[in-house]
């Protein structure tokens, strides 16, 4: 086996030939930026602004040691949703903000609070995620420092750049789409994802 197994390539040999053309989802705008949380010379933060009236659903890891950002998202989705003032999602890659005790929730509050303030959205409608190294306090100020810049370049056509910004050890950005005709118009669905290692999701 050792003689025949192959070395990993820069881009997975199983990667799709190209990133798909994603339709614009009215009411969703994306921005990608560089906060230097772990990675240098690339984007590592994604911001999404969602229009007033947006409904949110979620599924999260059942891990007993799940990160502060996961607990925060679950708490925000546990009650009746007030959708009137829109919503936002912010993601950083490079620091998982997991197993950092009280610092974890404080970092989540700083990051989601920064987005809430910049976009005039209630903090309980701002959802965050972090991925990367576990056990290191998240340098939230590096992220909050770029929120204003991100807010200024939100773009309905920015989903592909956002998919790139959330990568960690991924070798390619991931996107998918589906559309169908319904009574009165077309319904579009667009998805982006990251994932390459520590992958055996157990979600609920």
């Amino acid at each position, binding site marked *: 086996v050792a003689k025949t197994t192959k070395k990993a390539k820069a881009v997975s040999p199983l990667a799709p030939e190209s990133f798909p053309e994603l339709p614009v989802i009215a009411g*969703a705008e994306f921005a990608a930026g560089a906060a230097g949380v772990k990675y240098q010379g690339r984007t590592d933060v994604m911001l999404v602004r969602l229009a007033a009236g947006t409904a949110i659903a979620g599924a999260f*890891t059942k891990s007993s040691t799940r990160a502060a950002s996961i607990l925060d998202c679950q708490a925000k989705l546990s009650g009746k949703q007030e959708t009137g003032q829109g919503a936002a999602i912010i993601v950083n890659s490079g620091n998982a903000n997991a197993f950092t005790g009280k610092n974890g929730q404080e970092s989540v509050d700083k990051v989601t609070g920064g987005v809430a303030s910049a976009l005039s959205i209630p903090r309980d409608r701002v959802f965050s995620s972090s991925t990367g190294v576990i056990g290191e306090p998240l340098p939230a100020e590096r992220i909050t420092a770029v929120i204003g810049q991100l807010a200024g370049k939100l773009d309905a056509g920015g989903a592909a750049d956002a998919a790139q910004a959330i990568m960690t050890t991924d070798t390619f950005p991931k996107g998918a789409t589906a559309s169908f005709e319904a009574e009165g118009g077309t319904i579009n669905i667009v998805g*982006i994802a990251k994932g390459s290692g520590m992958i055996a999701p157990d979600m609920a």
Partner: protein
Amino acid sequence: TMLVYIFTDAKIAPEMLQKLLNGQLASTFNAITVDSDTSTSDALILAATGKTTAQPITDMRSAPARRFGKALGQVMMDLAHQVVRDGEGATKFVEVQVTGAANNNDAHRVAMAIANSPLVKTAIAGEDANWGRVVMAVGKSGAQADRDLLTIRFGDMVLAENGWRAPSYDEAAASAYMKRDHLVVGVDLGLGRGKRTVWTCDLTHGYIDINADYRS
């Protein structure tokens, strides 16, 4: 860690959106594995902006709700497969199909035991049609199984059945099949109607290279 963000312009209430999402999880993101390690940060957020001109989706049993559920499932499956295709160091995409289990839960346990087995995955990396390691994975899964009822297939080739190597087993054909980059490992337990399909990748030196270096 796996992060997924899905956006739609559908008009739909949060509770119904959540139900439609829940209905697609088991067969998509909960049916993949790269390395058997569940992250502390896996998250999926589904946002429906309501900005389409189409009529609202208000009834789970309606045609629009069913079509939305199907389209959502397609997007989720596509993304789940892409995550496996980017499995660290992966060179082969592997579909594990389990049928004939006593129930669906047992089928899931067997499928994941195979998909998570380092020995099955390194055999696949080495292009070795090692069905014996599949027998091992079935046995350790904890699901109800009977050695003498097992059938193991790689692609459309039956390698083992009735408790021993299949009389039709062709080493050259099996070895040729293993050189493909998309493999199907099929196991029929011969007990009931439980079934499950999961997806994984091979386990190569690349995985160690990446994870031995990925530190703070």
